[in-house]
């Protein structure tokens, strides 16, 4: 970002990227992808801000007396195998998309399509898995309003899922373009953007997972560190 900010500062070569190279379509495509990447990065900053504030609220609220930890021996998160399984799906999804992204760079259409399709399928598997965890919560009597820890679990996993669902809409649009035989060079930027977004959501999921699966002592330590206790 620093490089981006300073690129056109005084003394540097003048000119925004839009009109940097009068060369032709190639240059315009490169500029467009740069613009799209910048837009996506900014969006990810906004999403980070959103989740950071949710996590701040989580830590602050966890210090109240009525908080019942989800990691207690008889609570749903005492055993984390379901969440690990879901995590594995999301990791596989990201690996498939990364493979697709690299294949797109090398102009290998088949590999790009297969990787991209697999990425979406694994992501759907992750979402189904998360919904299954929600159902387990309900079956155990851990409803959204029963306790603030439950409320945050539903809220954070739900919001993360909604972000992934938004990504899947974009994924669906790109898949439709592949089916309509839109040339690969026109779609490689979209594949790349999708992959970046997926990687971000994977990182975010592990942050959320780590926090949700932590013990009250960890929350207390974080709260003390942040001056919330």
């Amino acid at each position, binding site marked *: 970002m620093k490089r981006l*900010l300073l690129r056109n500062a005084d003394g540097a070569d003048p*000119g925004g990227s839009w009109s940097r190279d009068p060369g032709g379509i190639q240059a315009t495509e490169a500029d467009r992808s740069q613009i799209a990447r910048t837009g996506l990065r900014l969006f990810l900053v906004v999403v980070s*801000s959103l989740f950071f504030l949710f996590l701040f*609220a989580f830590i*602050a*609220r966890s210090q109240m007396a009525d*908080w019942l930890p989800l990691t207690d021996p008889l609570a749903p998160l005492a055993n984390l195998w379901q969440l690990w399984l879901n995590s594995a799906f999301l990791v596989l999804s990201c690996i498939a998309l990364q493979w697709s992204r690299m294949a797109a760079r090398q102009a290998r259409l088949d590999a790009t399509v297969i990787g991209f399709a697999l990425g979406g399928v694994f992501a759907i598997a992750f979402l189904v898995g998360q919904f299954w965890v929600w159902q387990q919560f309900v079956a155990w009597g851990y409803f959204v309003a029963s306790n603030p820890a439950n*409320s945050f679990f539903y809220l954070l996993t739900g919001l993360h899922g909604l972000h992934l669902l938004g990504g899947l809409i974009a994924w669906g649009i790109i898949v439709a373009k592949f089916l309509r035989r839109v040339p690969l060079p026109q779609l490689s930027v979209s594949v790349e953007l999708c992959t970046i977004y997926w990687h971000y959501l994977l990182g975010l999921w592990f942050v959320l997972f780590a926090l949700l699966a932590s013990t009250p002592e960890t929350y207390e330590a974080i709260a003390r560190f942040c001056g919330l206790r």
Partner: protein
Amino acid sequence: MAYAEQAETEALHEPKSFLTKYIWSQDHKVIAIQYSLTALFVGVIAVVLSGLMRIQLGFPGTLEFMDASAYYQAMTMHGMIMVIYLLTALFLGGFGNYLIPLMVGARDMVFPYVNMLSYWFYLLAVVVLLSSFFVPGGPTGSGWTLYPPQSISQGTPGVEWGIVLMLVSLAIFIVAATMGGLNYVTTVLQARTHGMTLFRMPLSVWGIFIASIMALLAFPALFVSAVMMLFDKLLGTSFFMPAMISLGQQIDHQGGSPILFQHLFWFFGHPEVYIVALPAFGLVSDLISTHARKNIFGYRMMVWAIIAIGVLSFVVWAHHMYVSGMNPYFGFFFAVTTLIIAVPTALKVYNWVLTLWRGDIHLTVPMLFALAFIVTFLVGGLTGLFLGNVIVDIPLSDTYFVVAHFHMVMGVAPVLVVFGGIYHWFPKVTGRMLNDTLGKLHFWITFLGTYAIFFPMHYLGFQGMPRRYYAYENYAFIPQSAQELNAFITVIALTVGVSQLLFLFNLAWSAFKGKPAGSNPWGAASLEWQTPNTPPIHGNWGAKLPVVHRWAYDYSVPGIEQDFVPQTVSAEELEQMRQLSAGTKIADVKT
């Protein structure tokens, strides 16, 4: 005028049908006008609401329907509309949309479709907000800060529907603002024309750019608060709701933290002040420089001040919470940061004054509004220093002194810039001038009127008159003189409110019948005034993009007859202009 040599490599798909040209438009200029007209429309509603409140305060009992609930509902909607749906939308969606591409030499925003969506989401947010007037129980009356537990507890007006619609509307607005903000920031970073370096951008763009970044970072806090409060209200969670007895009944919630909401709200709320103020700072800098025919004093200092204010505004939020029972050390920290933020802010005021110093000041209508802004912002800013200190704030908290302060600094001052900006850029938008006489009349009534309204409120605050009361009769600690002053304020407020019709009439009449403006009626140097067509056509620049050779503030350059040098004039062209001016002078001497 110099243009880039290259032709655009991509075809410009100019919309042809009425629907795609004016309704579902992706053109930043049309979207800016849509944003502005919608914002002005809700602004009128907010002004009417304030008029109703003032009638109740000045002449209690005059309006039969104005009971306590109606008063609080009017107050809540007035505040929220003014801060979010008028000022934020107008500065970023209106001025930002119109000016950024034109000022940086772009053909449009980088994501035109998202830009269009941004407006329609904003409109949806407005519709949802206004629909709360027509639901059972009416809009929420919880105050614009929406503090829980009161905002979602029985007894508060609009507790069933109003608060839900308010929170949903805010969430939609934030989605709209995010889509807009991503566009503004990416356009500034990626779509500047040849030669438009960051430090050649006009301060208007800098103000809107930094405010957009702040909006992208701060609005999530409001979104988080809104979502969590919706959960508390609709799903029965206890994020913010403590255990309490309401109307004699133990409520179902327990353990929630209302203070947590306050932290989240003000983490958004204080940067919001600067999300409104920074664009105003930028616009007013351009107005002052243009109409004083002098380069802005300390341009780089002004830029760094904008950035410093933007950063510091994220670490002052708790000065809104001094009376919430926070740790005294926190209060000390936030008082210090609040005083520190006054430094770059004061620097800007000094630089405006130094720009005016020995300038060729043209008292045009935009300039009058710009000058009025400086003094108003100064007054509002100085009372901010009072309230930023914990020990002074505590006795003044919840009095009319606070009402006077935030109206001066956050209400009147930015609105003066809005007016100044509209009078200044209207000729570019429509190709016609606004009527000068009506403009001056509008200015003097608004300027003097707002001082007559808000100056006495400082005095009322010192007297201890509390805010948020819907009637001030029969309180032993409020003297009769306060009631007389309230009546005076009401008369002036109604006068100022009605006088805004002059402005609206001027807008409507001049758009069609105003004097033709030409391409650059103010003799401005910045890029938006150098478009080949006025109003600019789709794509802004014709076949070729402009090339920028200098900053936007070359006014009264020595040796040049014309008292401004457009940003598109190269060094060679400038030399030719010098020689031409010298030749003209020699010819004048000979004759």
